[in-house]
């Protein structure tokens, strides 16, 4: 009975996720991250990624990992909105508070049907656990993979995990010599990425060429919790630090 209920929940989840406006790292950023990840996947892991995406009825081309990485930004279910953020306050950072108390998934509940009030850190752990568990339904594994492809990138967008009371930079204006005036969030989410190039595979190849073995060894240590704090600190020092606190408060 429980497995039937889970299957029904999963089917409901699959139907509920229909395309909607973008949420984080514009498409190009997600595609670049997916291309870099694909480069570093082992052959067995890449084979499983292709197999899962190939079974996904939402995706027209099963081997297009970059396209799958954008899927979670296009879904219309507002329940998943918070899952792309961790609202870590810049002056009083507190991960549990930023993650709504880090609620545990109710027993038997798929991560894709988890509480609306949860954060990107918890959701990465939950979806990774599901993907590792052979008892997870195939439909939920596919959803878990597509969310992971998207959310790990979001965790690394500094303004997704830092907020100085300006809605993650959306209320702070940015003016540069070479770009149209806009808000800080869009500047980081889109403008900077597009400046790297419009062809995601080419941008990814360039970045891969600059990644040393030492970088890789250092970067994989820690886990989502520490990676979020690292990204948050970049947001506080490297992003808000550049525009100045007065601008960030809208003064």
């Amino acid at each position: 009975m429980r497995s039937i209920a889970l299957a029904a929940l999963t089917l409901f989840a699959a139907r509920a996720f229909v395309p909607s406006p973008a949420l984080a790292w514009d498409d190009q950023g997600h595609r670049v991250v997916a291309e870099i990840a694909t480069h570093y996947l082992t052959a067995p892991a890449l084979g499983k990624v292709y197999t899962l995406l190939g079974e996904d009825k939402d995706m027209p081309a099963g081997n297009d990992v970059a396209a799958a990485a954008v899927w979670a930004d296009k879904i219309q279910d507002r329940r998943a909105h918070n899952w792309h953020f961790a609202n870590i306050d810049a002056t009083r950072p507190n991960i549990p508070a930023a993650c709504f108390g880090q609620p545990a998934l109710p027993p038997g509940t798929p991560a894709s049907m988890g509480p609306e009030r949860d954060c990107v850190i918890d959701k990465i752990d939950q979806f990774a656990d599901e993907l590792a568990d052979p008892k997870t339904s195939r439909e939920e594994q596919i959803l878990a993979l597509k969310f992971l492809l998207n959310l790990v990138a979001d965790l690394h967008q500094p303004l997704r995990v830092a907020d100085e009371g300006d809605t993650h930079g959306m209320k702070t204006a940015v003016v540069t010599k070479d770009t149209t005036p806009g808000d800080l969030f869009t500047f980081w989410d889109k403008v900077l990425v597009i400046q790297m190039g419009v062809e995601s595979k080419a941008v990814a190849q360039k970045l891969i060429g600059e990644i040393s073995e030492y970088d890789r060894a250092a970067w994989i240590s820690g886990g989502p919790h520490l990676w979020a704090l690292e990204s948050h600190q970049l947001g506080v020092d490297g992003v808000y630090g550049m525009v100045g606190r007065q601008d960030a408060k809208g003064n």
Partner: protein
Amino acid sequence: MSDDDVAKAQKIAATQLSRAGVRLAYILNDVLAPIPSGAAPGVKTIGNSAAGRVFALATCSACHVVAQDQKAPRDLTTAPDFQAIANSRGMTQVAMRTFLASPHPTMPNLRLSPQQSMDVTAFIVSLKKATR
């Protein structure tokens, strides 16, 4: 923003995209095609975890919850509990030592002796709960 700031922003964005790609691959490799290693809970670690606990209580407890029974109040409440660090995905003694040996913006630049590093990482890994 000045041209210098834009250049700095481009560098940060490029690094974050690269980190995200490497870490995404790391997670997917770990969950879809894990390679058996000596990092599983219960596997012997190098170092003296009891000495590591004493060192951590003296050195790290100003920011971290090192042990549930620690008495001293923390100066910061942002740093993760050692239990949470131990249970982070992919956390092994090697990964923890690599993390401590490389600079991180959220932590002081620790200069641990090789023995201190082995002891404190042995202690942290010993806190890992066998959840997976």
